[in-house]
């Protein structure tokens, strides 16, 4: 049967198993929107800004492991998605973005709402397409989803000219996709696995460093098994939180600029570092030349470009993290015999336990509400069972430090790009995927104002997302840097001019709670969390609290500023 381009698009989404589409209509996509009401199995969520459409699709993808999908119009609709796309690209999140485009005959004519979005997004997508011929439409959509979710995942953009959406062709769904120029390596090289296992037998002070790639490849179980089998301590990057239960005695905490004392010390005293799905970002390594200076490094990553990009690696393993970890575990177990005893790192674990105990994460209590206390209280109230989204800045770091993450895909945070305004729409995406879960966006008073308009989206769809504002009336992280490194010159970081967040919530039809006294914190927070409605919880916290530990930019990991 002949179908229009718009019908082919929606039919293809169905074949790809898409159930939620985040979008915003406009002239160039009106034909697609004309078709949407005829597809009752596809839920369309109307956002209030296109940036939020991508963040919501991204949050949906992080929480579920499925591909997130969004649809926007040409021109400004398309350019508004760029921050969302770059956010997903930096964190390797599978998202497919459909953008409308002016009719093919007008492309290049500076037509109304025309922009070269394929050109604009080339450096921040895994790949992108302009569909000029309706006969390639179904195949292109198939390839877009395949590229987004396979190998190292990432955002893929498909640009759809209006005339292609209107014209008709026979719909043929390509079941098989062959792309001769794209073949990700999933299976590890056995020799490299053997060499990795050799390293375990030689090492006395090993550390497992896990990143977002581990969560992406659903390898948390394999990691926990390997860590327990060999009794190896585990640290993680921001993106890796949740991959390993923070309640485990082998857990040392997050590494990097705001990592724990034990985790950062472990990295710089280790003689073997096994990095799994982590890419050695500068916020993780600190001064690169001093990073893991005594360690041999085994690096497991599906993307060969991650290996030897920032640090030198002794044993590279290009593979899917789960297959590599399982392979290492198998080879290790097969080597243990009466003559080859199991590895024993108990002395190292003893040292680490002392570090962990001597300098745990801490902060000074005061009569004002401390932001750290808010996160701890939240964690206690939801028993660690919520999905947490964060904005970017101090709120993000306190969430990472003081919430006990035990399960993969429960932290949604913009790690690589550091996008303020990410958390709330991401929380909306996650809540749609998990209507019965508690979803909380830990926010700052600055970043929440970057996508606050999505309150309308949440309320319209009756999503009980909770926005927990750690309100210090500052752009806190920049203020912290100004205090510590710029001689207290608080240039443009005061945010006392802000809306009444309670009234604002109410104006949108959501609930608003304000907490200003320590004694009200737990009860008010519990009340808000129990509400079936969208709510803002505006907690007024200590105004000039800093995030510690802190490794100053460019310093070595063991040169931390502590509380």
């Amino acid at each position, binding site marked *: 049967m002949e179908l229009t381009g718009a019908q082919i698009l929606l039919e293809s989404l169905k074949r790809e198993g898409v159930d939620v589409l985040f979008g915003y209509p406009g002239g160039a996509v009106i034909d697609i929107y004309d078709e949407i009401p005829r597809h009752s199995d596809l839920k369309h969520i109307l956002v209030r800004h296109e940036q939020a459409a991508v963040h919501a699709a991204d949050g949906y993808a992080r929480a579920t492991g499925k591909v997130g999908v969004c649809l926007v119009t040409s021109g400004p609709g398309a350019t508004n998605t760029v921050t969302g796309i770059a956010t997903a690209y930096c964190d390797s999140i599978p998202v497919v973005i459909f953008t409308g485009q002016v009719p093919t005959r007008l492309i290049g004519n500076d037509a109304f709402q025309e922009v070269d979005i394929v050109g604009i997004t*080339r*450096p921040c997508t895994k*790949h992108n397409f*302009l569909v000029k011929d309706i006969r390639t439409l179904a195949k292109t959509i198939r390839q877009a989803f395949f590229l987004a979710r396979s190998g190292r995942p990432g955002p893929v953009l498909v640009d759809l000219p209006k005339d292609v959406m209107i014209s008709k062709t026979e719909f043929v769904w390509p079941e098989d996709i062959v792309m001769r*120029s794209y073949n990700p390596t999933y299976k590890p090289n056995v020799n490299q696995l053997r060499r990795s296992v050799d390293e375990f037998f030689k090492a006395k002070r090993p550390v497992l460093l896990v990143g977002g790639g581990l969560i992406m490849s659903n390898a948390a179980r394999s990691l926990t098994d390997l860590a327990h089998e060999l009794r190896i301590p585990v640290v993680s990057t921001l993106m890796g939180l949740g991959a390993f239960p923070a309640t485990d005695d082998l857990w040392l905490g997050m590494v990097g600029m705001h990592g724990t004392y034990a985790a950062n010390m472990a990295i710089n005293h280790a003689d073997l570092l096994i990095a799994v799905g982590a890419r050695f970002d500068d916020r993780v390594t600190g001064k690169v030349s001093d990073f893991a200076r005594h360690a041999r490094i085994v690096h497991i990553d599906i993307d*060969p*470009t991650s290996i030897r990009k920032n640090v030198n690696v002794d044993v590279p393993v290009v593979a899917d993290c789960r297959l590599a970890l399982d392979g290492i575990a198998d080879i290790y177990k097969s080597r243990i015999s009466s003559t080859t005893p199991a590895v024993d790192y108990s002395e190292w674990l003893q040292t680490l336990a002392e570090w962990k105990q001597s300098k745990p994460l801490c902060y000074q209590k005061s009569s004002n509400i401390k932001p750290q206390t808010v996160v701890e209280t939240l964690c206690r109230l939801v028993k660690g069972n919520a999905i947490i989204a964060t904005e970017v800045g101090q709120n993000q770091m306190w969430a990472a430090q003081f919430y006990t993450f035990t399960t993969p895909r429960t932290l949604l945070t913009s790690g690589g790009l550091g996008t303020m305004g990410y958390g709330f729409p991401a929380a909306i995406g996650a809540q749609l995927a998990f209507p019965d879960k508690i979803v909380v966006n830990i926010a700052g008073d600055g970043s929440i104002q970057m996508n606050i308009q999505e309150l309308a989206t949440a309320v319209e769809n009756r999503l009980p997302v909770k926005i927990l504002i750690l309100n210090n009336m500052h752009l806190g992280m920049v203020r912290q840097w100004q205090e510590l490194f710029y001689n207290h010159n608080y240039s443009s970081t005061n945010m006392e001019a802000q809306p009444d967040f309670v009234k604002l919530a109410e104006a949108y039809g959501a609930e608003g709670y304000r907490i200003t006294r320590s004694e009200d914190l737990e009860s008010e927070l519990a009340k808000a969390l129990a509400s079936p409605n969208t709510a803002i919880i505006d907690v007024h916290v200590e105004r000039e609290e800093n995030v510690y530990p802190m490794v100053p930019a460019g310093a070595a990991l063991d040169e931390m500023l502590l509380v």
Partner: protein
Amino acid sequence: MRHVLSVLVENEPGVLSRVAGLFSGRGFNIESLNVAPTLEEGVSHMTITTRGDEQIVEQIVKQLHKLVTVIKVMDFSDVAAVEREMMLLKVQAEGSMRGEILRMVEIFRCKVVDVSFSEMTIEATGNAEKIQAIISLFQRFGIKEVARTGSVAMRRSMQLDT
């Protein structure tokens, strides 16, 4: 160190911009870039000469490979390869100079492809050093214009030392 990379790509719109954007976006350096179709329909061949230490060139090769439209990447520094570049060079050629210029053309096995009362256009092929030598030697006559293709390269059939 200078590296000559041979890159096979899908011949689709935007592929050149993907490759060029990769170099500019990551701060890699392109010394020359040559693109042309191959015998296989839909496949183009790029020869890229670049400079960088071992780690940088390793990244360049890997990043090129990562582009979805790139089919194959080879670094010719690792193998024996033939490398050639073509140049058109317009030189001032009046009266007494013409004989001298024609002798040089012969020595370097160039060709005169266009001539007027005051100028000659010469076609030269060779590796990068030869082209550079020709430019240096013709400079004293007065070079009016130069157009170069950038290197193209091919792996030698006989890899003697392997």
